[in-house]
């Protein structure tokens, strides 16, 4: 009598050990595929959020540098004009230059405070990402 060919279902309806192995391999293949797709999607979302945040950060960065410089220039200019008016070259210029520097630092710290408030409002108080909760696998 010829043997039943390998891999075919026995008449009782049970799976042969080879079939079970094939199924399990397919299952794990599928599982890893799904995981891969999910990770890709998550990465895409994160990348998009990062992009938005980076654009915001860039806007603030551009602001801070120019505000710092502008305060120093205005301070120096005020000092220079007062010097010319009172004939006290160069003392008022030096004084107002330093004051301008202080004003620049103040501008930057204020802008940074605002940035932090902004981020806190957007992320609901927790800066950065939540850790994934690993309870389902």
């Amino acid at each position: 009598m010829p043997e039943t060919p390998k891999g075919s279902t026995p008449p009782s309806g049970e799976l042969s050990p080879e079939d079970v192995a094939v199924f399990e391999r397919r299952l794990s293949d599928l599982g890893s595929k799904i995981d891969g797709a999910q990770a890709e999607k998550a990465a895409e979302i994160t990348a998009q959020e990062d992009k938005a945040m980076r654009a915001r950060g860039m806007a603030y960065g551009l602001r801070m540098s120019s505000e710092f410089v502008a305060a120093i220039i205005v301070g120096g200019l005020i000092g220079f004009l007062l010097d010319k008016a009172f004939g006290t070259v160069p003392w008022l210029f030096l004084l107002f230059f330093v004051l301008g520097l202080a004003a620049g630092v103040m501008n930057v710290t204020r802008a940074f405070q605002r940035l932090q408030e902004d981020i806190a409002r957007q992320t609901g108080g927790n800066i950065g990402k939540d850790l994934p909760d690993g309870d389902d696998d």
Partner: protein
Amino acid sequence: MAAEEAGSHGAGGMPDPIHQFEIHRWFPLDLFGYDATFTNSSAYMLAAVALIIGFLTVATSGRALVPGRLQSIAEQLYEFIANMVRESMGEQGMKFFPLVFTLFSFILALNMLGMIPGAFTVTSHLAVTAALAGLVFLTVLVVGFAKNGLHFLKLFVPSGVPIYVLPLVTMIEIISFFSRPLSHSVRLFANMLAGHITLKVFGGFVIMLLGAAGALKAMAPLPLLMATALTALEFLVAFLQAYVFTMLTCMYLNDALHPGH
């Protein structure tokens, strides 16, 4: 190309990166002793205004309950600015919505028109950005004094500062206040100017390398790639600078409404 546009090319076949910012006088006009010549800059400003009005008119003409594409762009634009105004000034800040919306759409339209190859970028001129920043600065002063009277000066006197450093802090606050129109205008102007010069320089590299001999010619695609990437960055900057300008306008106007920090 160098022959037909001789004026735009410097030595060695390198296109002159500054040429694009030249003002051309189209129709000389003398208004009450002031030089009000219609220039290419004026033309682009008019084009921007026409673009905005045309777009908003067409977009809102349907007034559908379920907005179509154009209408939803217009609605998003409105929501974007309205949220910005409400967030920084509160509900009473909506008085300034027309001003803020106009500034944003005007600057955005000018920046984006400037991104069209060969177009003139109005916002790359300090005169224009300084006028816009000056407008905001004067509005803050006028509204601040009109609404709060001398209480507006509280802006320069932060609360909770010991009396012996108060004069110093007040001086610093005043300098900080007067540095606003400078940083406000220079930021927009410098970003647009620098971006467009960079684009032009990298474009010029492509032409120079193509004109060179042998192996250098093969390197021509490299600056072209760079110019392409920079174009994308410039679009981001064009939007971002309009956004930053508007956001700061809101912030400054907020000081006029609520002087105490």
